[in-house]
């Protein structure tokens, strides 16, 4: 059962990812990306990371992608016109690189598996977590061990927000 679910989600994710790359209209790409994120969220859930799965759906597929869609609507990009470019051989090279890259990662994964780094496998969604469940462990870790990085990230987000505002505002003023 879990294997079927995994393969279903994996197939969806890969298909959506390929669509993201291939779609000539940006909006379609964005929509395909949302689908891909959803499938990944399902995989996260299957891996026992319920909280992350929720965040993935709410923040990523929700907030960030909405931001993307807003920008797409704002700029209304025409479908990609293939202007003559000097980089005709780049896609070939990229594909070759990507295949190689995948092979490298697979080889690495195989080695890890062979070295029995991992706990053998999972049967379902159940997971041996402490009392209070997985989210409590996460919270403990986040707000105790990783408190400083957490605070730093909040500053980072603040800076990003300000940066975004400044970047887009300045242009208005000059106009």
């Amino acid at each position, binding site marked *: 059962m879990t294997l079927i679910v995994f393969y279903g989600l994996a197939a969806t994710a890969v298909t959506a990812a390929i669509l*993201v*790359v291939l779609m000539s209209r940006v909006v379609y790409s964005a929509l395909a990306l949302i689908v891909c994120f959803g499938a990944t969220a399902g995989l996260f859930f299957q891996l026992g990371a319920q909280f*992350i799965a929720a965040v993935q759906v709410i923040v990523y597929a929700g907030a960030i992608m909405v931001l993307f869609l807003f920008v797409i609507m704002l700029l209304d990009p025409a479908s990609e016109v293939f202007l003559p470019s000097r980089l005709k051989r780049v896609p070939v090279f990229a594909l070759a690189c990507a295949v190689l890259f995948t092979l490298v990662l*697979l080889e690495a994964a195989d080695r890890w598996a062979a070295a029995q780094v991992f706990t053998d496998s999972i049967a379902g969604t159940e997971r041996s977590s402490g009392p209070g469940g997985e989210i409590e462990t996460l919270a403990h870790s986040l707000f105790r061990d990783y408190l400083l990085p957490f605070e730093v990230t909040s500053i980072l987000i603040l800076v990003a927000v300000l940066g975004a505002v400044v970047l887009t505002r300045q242009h208005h003023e000059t106009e």
Partner: protein
Amino acid sequence: MISATHYLTLAAILFAIGTVGVITRRNVITMFMCVELMLNAVNLTFITFSRFLDQIDGQIFVLFVMTVAAAEAAVGLALIVVLSRHTGTLDVDQANTMKW
């Protein structure tokens, strides 16, 4: 039974697809989305490791990646807006003035 290798393979494939997208597409927004795709693949690896090594830190890292990705999206999209206003196009190959 699903082993870690399954998830890692899937993540590798997703990452490679994202890479190809970044390199081949010329629309800035699409490139940007492909970068998100790559990040997503990395997140999947993190979660996988977290699960199979039974350590919570992987999930923490995913959270950080997501926050950084959100910040990146905010700044990046702002830059895209500025770029499109400035050059009137979203084609990265047109924005090639920073060269010798």
